[in-house]
């Protein structure tokens, strides 16, 4: 009799893992993906939507079209997991029983946690990115400020990438000299990783982008048009873009499966829940202190799939574990990009920005739909 494997979340991680388990278990597991919308969204593209380089439609595909034919898709929202009974209650009232459960529910953005930030812009949701592009189209000059209102957040390089792409955008519109771009960073450098900061900071200076360090956004005054930091500094703006605070999904919090921010505690190598049996988590969903990014979800998905397949087949857990591998592209504008690669044992390295990495990023974005969700890229 086949094991029932339930995957919550049809994002990068959940989709790859579901496909790999279905393939590798050779009929010993029946896989069901539960996704709230049934639409797979390529979130790294939001950044490009915000500056008009990508159309929203090209970032969305039907989840069903990305899953192997033997995987069942349930378009519904998981409202409660009962780890004792090994069941998932869905919003429709339906209950799914599982032998193995993968939590791949990702993160949600919580701009409402920032006092005064009701009308602030962001590029962390499709709606936010589209609204930001509308605002940029009518922007005629003034100060654009980019700040970080909570950590951890998805795609650590995104704030730096955004200011570079914004610089390009304003130049293309011929209004760059009428605009000031300010990047407010949580640390005393442009990026958490020192090696990457050293590469990026001279380029920021060259493009006339002003960097303010140790500015952790606490609140916004929409009337005075100022943003204030935990450190007590205040900066004025004409257009404010914030990286919103993130937290885990409500179902995680409601089911008592996560910490106080809804991140699921897992073993950093096996991705198994530290408290509950038969549960794994990957991607943004976990509390592992590494990047919340599609690449992490991608690499973790193959490890979780091997773990879940072994459990479904009644075999010993696999020797292959997650080694903390992260790979990010970082756009530096002017058609160039660099990459950041590291794992638990190796410090980050970044090559000098070049056109090659920009093309590699664009190529990856285009070929994503035919390779990544299906588990065709290692």
């Amino acid at each position, binding site marked *: 009799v086949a094991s029932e494997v339930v995957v919550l979340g049809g994002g990068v991680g959940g989709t790859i893992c579901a496909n790999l388990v279905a393939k590798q278990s050779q009929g010993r597991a029946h896989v069901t993906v539960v996704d709230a919308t049934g639409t797979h969204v390529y979130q790294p593209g939001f950044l490009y939507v915000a500056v008009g380089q990508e159309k929203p439609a090209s970032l969305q595909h039907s989840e069903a079209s990305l899953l192997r034919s033997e995987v069942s898709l349930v378009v519904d929202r998981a409202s409660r997991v009962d780890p004792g009974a090994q069941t998932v209650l869905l919003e429709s009232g339906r209950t799914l029983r599982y032998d193995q459960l993968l939590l791949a529910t990702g993160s949600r953005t919580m701009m409402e946690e920032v006092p005064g930030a009701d009308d602030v812009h962001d590029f962390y949701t499709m709606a936010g990115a589209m609204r930001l592009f509308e605002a940029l189209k009518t922007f005629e000059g003034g100060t654009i400020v980019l700040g970080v209102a909570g950590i951890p957040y998805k795609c650590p390089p995104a704030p730096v990438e955004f200011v570079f792409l914004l610089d390009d955008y304003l130049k293309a519109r011929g209004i760059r000299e009428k605009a000031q771009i300010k990047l407010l960073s*949580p640390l*005393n450098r442009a990026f958490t990783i020192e090696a990457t900061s050293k590469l990026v900071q001279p380029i920021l200076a060259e493009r006339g982008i002003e960097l303010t360090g140790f500015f*952790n956004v606490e609140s916004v005054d929409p009337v005075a048009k100022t943003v204030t930091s935990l*450190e007590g500094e205040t900066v004025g703006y004409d257009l404010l873009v914030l990286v919103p605070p993130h937290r885990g999904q409500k179902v995680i919090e409601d089911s008592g499966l996560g910490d106080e921010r809804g991140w699921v505690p897992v073993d950093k190598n096996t991705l198994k829940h530290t408290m509950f049996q038969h549960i794994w988590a990957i991607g943004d969903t976990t509390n592992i202190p590494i990047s919340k990014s599609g690449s992490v979800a991608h690499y973790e998905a193959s490890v979780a799939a091997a773990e879940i397949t072994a459990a479904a087949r009644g075999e010993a857990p696999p020797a292959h574990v997650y080694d903390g591998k992260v790979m990010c592209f970082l756009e530096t504008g002017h058609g160039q990009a660099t990459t950041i690669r590291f794992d638990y044992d190796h410090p980050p390295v970044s090559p000098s920005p070049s056109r090659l990495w920009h093309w590699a990023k664009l190529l990856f974005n285009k070929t994503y739909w035919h390779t990544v969700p299906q588990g065709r890229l290692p």
Partner: protein
Amino acid sequence: MSVTIAMSLNLRGLSCPMPIVKTAKAMKELGPGQLVEVFATDPGSVPDFKAWSQSTGNPLMETNQEDGVYRFILKKKEL
């Protein structure tokens, strides 16, 4: 001389910049001159706390390390 620690933060296992952000948030709750003690395991937190202290004017009173755990004592700046 004995010092009174007003708040102790366990930030072990967190990677940069989480220790700075959590400390900055916690120090909002302290009164001027009060001390916060921070435990962290990220080696990057040593230069980060030093620089944060200099940048924000909240004095870093002490930094030491035992068994891979760093202990920082910061003082909330006087008004």
